[in-house]
């Protein structure tokens, strides 16, 4: 299958995503410049991490109006597979493809370390390679990962099983102590109602090979590839 990795000015995990898709998973992968206006021939669109437009105004706020985003919205509305990681997740919320917003970390600090997340829902095209309640060790690297949405939205996400990962202990308990950024209900990743748009603050593309410290992120790519 063919992955398209969008490059915004300030993206910096685009190469990691490309490497994971192409060299680790052996799939086709291409970069898509943010000014391009065609997503023809792509099976999965990746919005990578980074600091698009220097995080000016709000993270993802300006990138969301890049020319390519009209096509991404169109692609997603047609049921296309879209994954946003870190800054990509922030852009998806700004674009309205995912609910809520990622606010400044409660600690006000940029946090760059490995965390544990629990797989809450494995019945999605992004997580079907994992077991339900499986614990993954995945890095986070962000200053704005504090997921917030109003009570009704959170209830809807909970009721529809749209919460995909939660920050947890190594043993899988969801506690405030292991919530790195203040996210409501320890939310680390969500999916849209239709199940084709996925946003995650942790970086699966960074843990796809043991030589780079782990393979817990591979499942995301395996899931997408298996489902296509």
């Amino acid at each position, binding site marked *: 299958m063919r992955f398209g990795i969008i490059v915004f000015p300030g993206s910096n995990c685009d190469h990691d995503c490309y490497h994971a898709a192409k060299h680790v998973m052996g799939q086709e992968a291409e970069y898509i410049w943010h000014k391009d206006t065609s997503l023809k021939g792509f099976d999965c669109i990746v919005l990578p991490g980074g600091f698009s437009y220097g995080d000016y105004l709000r993270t993802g*706020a300006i990138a969301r109006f890049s020319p390519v985003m009209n096509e991404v919205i169109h692609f997603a509305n047609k049921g296309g597979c879209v994954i946003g990681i870190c800054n990509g997740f922030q852009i998806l919320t*700004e674009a309205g493809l995912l609910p809520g*917003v990622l*606010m*400044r*970390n409660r600690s*006000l600090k940029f946090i760059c370390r490995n965390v544990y997340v629990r797989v809450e829902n494995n019945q999605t095209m992004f997580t079907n390679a994992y077991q339900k309640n499986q614990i993954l060790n995945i890095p986070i690297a962000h200053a704005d990962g504090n997921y*917030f949405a109003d009570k009704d939205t959170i209830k809807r996400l909970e009721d529809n099983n749209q919460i995909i990962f939660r920050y947890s202990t190594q043993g899988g308990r969801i506690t405030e102590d292991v919530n790195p950024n*203040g996210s409501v209900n320890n939310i680390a990743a969500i999916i849209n109602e239709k199940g084709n748009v996925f946003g995650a603050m942790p970086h699966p593309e960074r843990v796809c090979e043991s030589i780079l410290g782990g393979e817990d992120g591979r499942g995301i790519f395996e899931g997408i590839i298996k489902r296509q």
Partner: protein
Amino acid sequence: MKDRGVMKAKVFVTLKKGVLDPQGKAVGEALASMGYSEVKGLRIGKFIEVELDTSSKEDAGKRLKEMCEKLLANTVVEDYRVEIE
């Protein structure tokens, strides 16, 4: 001929009530620790100055509302207020 001139607008973007503002909290606590013990709360927002090439205040107001809704504020967590000079 009347010069269209530049209209100036001020946009205030603030966090909605109930939305946690860790930055405001840290700054408020800093003031309190500096001896300003009367500081009981502090919230930080954004102040944006916009210059517009238009002569109609009404149009400017409409367009600025759009700008706020689309880009300047994220209405999930922020409120905005516009003042046109």
